[in-house]
């Protein structure tokens, strides 16, 4: 079954999702990776306002290739970056800024899974490297903030239309598709070791 959701996401939308579901998104999607997390949390500590509102938002772990055509920016390629790099910052980011969805690849660690459960946020996996397919669902660019961080690290404000397919990788019930796969890999490891003539 494929669902279509619009951002900003309500807590109800988010809490109704379960791992393994395929969804498509409409509405605003913000990019943000290492530097955006660091910057936003620093701003908060200093009591400064950040330039965008992440409440209920879809935060995309992505450093896109953008091109300026006249005065307008356009998305050239925008696949996900490795989410685990944000593991140490994401629980606090979710607590303070309350995004509704994090879009990325590779999954995230237990403290983030816990924060998603507590504050109502899901992890949506998008195919890594499939940057042209992703860009196809990002129809226009409303603006950019923190451009001084560099093209990959800035906050790009993108308008999504039928953006996906996205797979719910972590839901608000504490389930993670990545943890399930990791358990299966552990189960499969003895057979792999035997095949390679290694001690079990």
């Amino acid at each position, binding site marked *: 079954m494929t669902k279509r959701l619009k951002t900003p996401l309500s807590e109800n939308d988010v809490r109704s999702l379960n791992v393994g579901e395929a969804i498509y998104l409409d509405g605003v999607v913000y990019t943000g990776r290492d530097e955006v997390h660091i910057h936003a949390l620093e701003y908060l500590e200093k009591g400064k306002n950040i330039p965008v509102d992440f409440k209920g938002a879809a935060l995309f772990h992505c450093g896109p290739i953008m091109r300026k055509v006249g005065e307008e920016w356009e998305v050239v390629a925008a696949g996900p970056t490795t989410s685990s790099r944000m593991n140490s910052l994401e629980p606090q980011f979710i607590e303070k800024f309350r995004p509704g969805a994090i879009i990325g690849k590779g999954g995230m660690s237990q403290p983030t899974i816990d924060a998603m459960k507590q504050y109502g946020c899901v992890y949506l996996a998008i195919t890594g490297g499939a940057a*042209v397919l992703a860009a196809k669902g990002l129809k226009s660019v409303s603006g950019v903030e923190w451009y001084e961080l560099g093209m990959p690290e800035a906050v790009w404000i993108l308008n999504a239309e039928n953006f996906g397919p996205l797979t719910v990788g972590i839901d608000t019930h504490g389930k993670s598709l990545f943890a399930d796969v990791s358990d299966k890999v552990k189960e499969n490891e003895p057979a792999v070791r035997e095949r390679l003539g290694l001690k079990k």
Partner: protein
Amino acid sequence: MVAEADIQSAVVELLRRTVVKLPSDVEEALERALDAEVDETPTMQLKAIMENIKLAGEGNTPMCQDTGVTIFYVTLPKNCEIDVERGIIDGVRRATSEVPLRPNAVHPITRKNPGDNVGDGMPYINWKVGSNDFIEITVMTKGAGSENMSQMAMLTPSQGVKGIKEFILSTVVRAGGNPCPPMVLGVGIGGSSDICMKLAKQALLRPLNERHKDPEIAGLETELLEALNMLGIGPMGLGGKTTAIGLNIEYAYCHTASLPVAVNVQCWAARRGTMRIHPDGRSEFLTPEE
């Protein structure tokens, strides 16, 4: 006569081709992976990958936003008098705005981004002098998601082949879904610590369907690939039959007291490009194939 400007233009074109299109051996391996899957989630991932490859080709657009840092392998003819290095550096700078490539190269400490993929030590060029009259240039545009999963170890000789297998297995399990599987594994064995890491990356330059010329190494490549695909990490780490679409090993003789081993993890978008620039200035693009 080849001029520096010919090199520059050819490098721009080589980079464009390399980030837009996959070598045929990689694309064929991905097609086989799609055919092998039965479950919905891995099938959806591989279909998205194949669709993306098609869209990138049609739109002449980089298939992945991470166009890497530019690492070159150059074989010069004897007595080459033109400044190939200058041509490559200027070519990278131009390709960054013209293709475009993502400006990825930053200062390692200040993280300052000059915006043109050029800085101290980058692009990085590995030089060789050959016996042909043409200049051969290969480039690998490899993303950080997979590069960050690469590892090396200085094993002891007594750990032997088993130690090598253990290390490769643990590297792949640790990488999980992070490097954008189905992955390609480049393995370096022997040399010294620095040579071993280089061998691991160079192993990724060999087509996936070509086994090592030493039958023993070739056997090890096949055995490891088949075993690793029993892990079930699958496309994007979401489970499935294909975790790796290729595993290539390169080796060098090493010190009698050492056994270095290195794994360079590559993503499904295993981009590599090779061209030749002939003495008359004509450039010939070999990989990816037309």
